[in-house]
C-alpha cells in the first residue's frame, strides 16, 4: 500500500511540475532583450517577454525603458486586455528603445499581485496593472517600491500614492455615439445590450449606449442583460438569443465573453456594435462599428511624467476629445450616409460639450 501511495505521489508531483513548467510566475522570467520574442504560456498566467532586436543592437549602450503589463484575460481577447497590449506596442514603435513584458490571464488577483511585485523587483520602469480588481494589491505593493512607477486602470483613484497613476476610459462617450446610430438603424426599435457585471467600464459603456439610443429615439426599447460573468460565453450566447426572441435587431455588448453573442447575432443577421477593440473580424457581415481604446494617448503622458521625475499621483482619462477613443467603422458594412453623419455629429457634439452622455 505504501508503494502505491508513493507511486501516485510521484504522478501528482509530475503533473504539478508539468503545470509549473508551462506556467510562469514571472519572478523567474528571463528577459529576452536581444531576441525577437520569447513566449511561455501555461495553465495559469502566461508571460511574454519581447525585446527589440534592432534597438538593442544599434543602441546597445542605452538602457531601454521597461514596461510591464499585468492583465486579467488573454492578450488577444479582442477586448479589454488586448486594448492595453496594442497600446504598449504603439508606444514601443514610437519610442524605439522599449522593452515590453506581459503577464496575461491573471484572472486570479493573487497571481497578478505576485507578478506586479516581481516586475517591481526586476527594476521595470512602469508596471501597468490593467484591471480594476488589482487596486487592493497595488495599494500594498506600490509603497514598497517608491522608485517604480505604477499605472492602474481602469480606475480613478491613486490612493494618494505618489508613484501610482490611474487611468480610465470615458466608455460612455463611444457607447452614446454608437447607441444613437443603433437607434437610427433599428427597424424594430428594439436593441439588446449584454454586459458582464454592473460595474466600472462595462456599466459606463452600457449606460452610455442606452442613453444614446434613447436620445435618438425616445420610443426605443433598450433591453439590458448583465449575465453576471466576464467569461461565460454560453450565457452571453443565450442572452443574445433572448434579445432575438424579443425582436431586437441591433445588439452590442462589452467584456470578453461577448464573442458568444456575436456569433448568435451573425447567425440571425442582427447587426452588432463592438467595444474595447475592433470586433469586425468576428463577424464581418454584421459589425457596424467598434469603439476602440487607444491607451497610448494616456501612456504617452504617463511616460513623459516619469521621465520628468514624477512617478505617479495623477489621473488620466481617454475620451473622444483626446483621441483615446475612436469609433472605427467596418468598411464592409453598408452604413447609410445619414447614419454615419449622425455618428460624426454626435462625436462632435460630445467633444464640444453640447451633448451630454448622462454618465
Amino acid at each position, binding site marked *: *500500500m505504501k508503494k*502505491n501511495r508513493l*507511486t*501516485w505521489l510521484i*504522478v*501528482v508531483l509530475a*503533473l*504539478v511540475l*508539468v*503545470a509549473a513548467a*508551462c*506556467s510562469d510566475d514571472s519572478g523567474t522570467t528571463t528577459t529576452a532583450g536581444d531576441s525577437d520574442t520569447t513566449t511561455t*504560456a*501555461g*495553465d*495559469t498566467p*502566461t508571460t511574454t517577454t519581447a525585446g527589440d532586436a534592432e534597438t538593442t543592437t544599434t543602441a546597445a549602450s542605452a538602457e531601454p525603458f521597461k514596461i510591464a503589463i499585468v492583465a486579467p*484575460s*488573454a492578450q*488577444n*481577447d*479582442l477586448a479589454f486586455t488586448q486594448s492595453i497590449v496594442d497600446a504598449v506596442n504603439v508606444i514601443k514603435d514610437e519610442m524605439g528603445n522599449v522593452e515590453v513584458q506581459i503577464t496575461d*490571464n491573471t484572472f486570479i488577483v493573487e497571481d497578478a499581485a505576485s507578478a506586479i511585485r516581481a516586475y517591481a523587483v526586476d527594476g521595470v520602469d512602469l508596471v501597468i496593472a490593467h484591471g480594476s480588481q488589482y487596486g487592493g494589491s497595488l495599494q500594498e505593493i506600490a509603497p514598497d517600491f517608491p522608485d517604480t512607477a505604477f499605472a492602474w486602470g481602469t480606475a480613478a483613484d491613486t490612493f494618494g500614492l505618489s508613484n501610482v497613476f490611474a487611468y480610465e476610459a470615458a466608455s460612455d462617450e463611444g457607447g452614446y455615439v454608437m447607441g444613437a446610430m443603433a437607434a437610427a438603424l433599428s427597424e424594430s426599435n428594439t436593441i*439588446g445590450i449584454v454586459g458582464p*457585471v*454592473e460595474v466600472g467600464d462595462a456599466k459606463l459603456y452600457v449606460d452610455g449606449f442606452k442613453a444614446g439610443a434613447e436620445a435618438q429615439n425616445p420610443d426605443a426599447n433598450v*433591453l*439590458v*442583460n*448583465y*449575465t*453576471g*460573468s466576464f*467569461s*461565460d*460565453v*454560453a*450565457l452571453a*450566447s*443565450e*442572452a443574445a*438569443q*433572448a*434579445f*432575438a*426572441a*424579443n425582436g431586437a435587431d441591433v445588439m452590442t455588448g462589452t467584456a*470578453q*465573453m461577448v*464573442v*458568444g453573442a*456575436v*456569433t448568435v447575432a*451573425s*447567425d440571425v443577421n442582427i447587426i452588432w456594435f463592438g467595444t474595447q477593440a475592433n470586433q469586425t*473580424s*468576428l*463577424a464581418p457581415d454584421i459589425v457596424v462599428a467598434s469603439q476602440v481604446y487607444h491607451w497610448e494617448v494616456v501612456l504617452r503622458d504617463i511616460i513623459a511624467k516619469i521621465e520628468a521625475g514624477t512617478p505617479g499621483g495623477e489621473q488620466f482619462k481617454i475620451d473622444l476629445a483626446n483621441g483615446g477613443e475612436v469609433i472605427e467603422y467596418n468598411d464592409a458594412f453598408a452604413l447609410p450616409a445619414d447614419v454615419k453623419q449622425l455618428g460624426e455629429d454626435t462625436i462632435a457634439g460630445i467633444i464640444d460639450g453640447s451633448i451630454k452622455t448622462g454618465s
Partner: protein
Amino acid sequence: MSDFFTTAILVATAASGVRLAVPLLFASLGETFGQRSGVLNLGVDGIMLLGAFGGYYAVLQTGSVWLGLLIGIVVGMLLGLVSALISVTLRAEQGISGIGIYLFGLGMSDLLFQKLVGTPLPITKFPKLNFPVLSDIPVIGELLFQHSVVVYLAFLAVPVSMYIINKTTFGMNIRAVGENPEAADSLGVSVNRIRYATVIIGGTLAGVAGAALAIDLGIFQQNLTNAQGFIAIALVYFGAWRPVGVMLGSLLYGFVNAIVLQLKTLAIIPPDLSDFAAMAPAIITILALVVVARRFKAPAALTKPYSRGE
C-alpha cells in the same frame, strides 16, 4: 411579468434551457458511468476544455463539424485513459488527481489556443435539423424539432445509458464493482477492466460535451466551459447516479439559467439584483442536492481505489 408569459417568449426560453443543458447532460452521463463503478473523476472540466479546443480547431481547419466532434471523442478517450491510469492502476486519491487533470486541461487548452489560433475566430456551427411537417408545427415544432443535431444525440444518450447500466452484463458488472468490488472480483469480474472502461466512457462523453459546446457556440475562448464540468459532477449526485435523474438535473440547471436570463432581459429582474439572480441556478442545484443526497445512497465503493487482498 405578463411579457414573460407569452407563447413566443416561453418557447424561446425553453429552447434556450435545452441548449444550455446539452453539454452538462453529455458530461454528467459520462461521469455517471465512472461513479457507478466507484471512480470519481474530478477532471471532467479539463477534459471538456481540451475536447472543446480540439473540436473547435478541427472545424476551424477543415470546416467539418463532424470531424470536430470526432476529435472531441478522440481527445476525450485519451484523457479518459490517462484518468483511468491514474485512478485505477496507480490508485491515486481521486479527490486530488482529478484536480490535476482539470488544471492540465485548463492550461493546455488555453496554451494551444494561444499558440495555434490566437485571436478568436468564428467557426461553422452544427446544422439545425429540420424535420418535414414536425418542425413547422407551432410551439411544439420550435420546442422539440428545430434544434441542432447534438441536442438529439445528448437526449438519445439517456436511454442508451439506462439500457447499458440496467440491462446488460457490462452494466451489471459496473454496478457490482461500484458497490462491492471484492465480491465482484471473487466472481471473476475484473474490477480494473470495468473501471477502465467506465472512466474512458466518461472521458469520451466529456470530450463530446466540450466539442458540442464549442461547435454549438461557434467560438473558442480561454476557459470556455466556465466550470460546467464541475456542475456536471454535482448533477450526478443530484441525479442519484441514474441517467434519468442526471437528465432532469441538467434540464433544471439549464431552465433556471434560461429563465433568469429572460427575466433579466425583460427587466422583470432589475439590474441591481442581476448578480444575485445569476447565482440562482447554483443555489437551486445545491438545495436540490441536499434533498436528494439524503434519500439516495452513493455507490458504496465510490472514491475507494481497489487492490486485491488488502
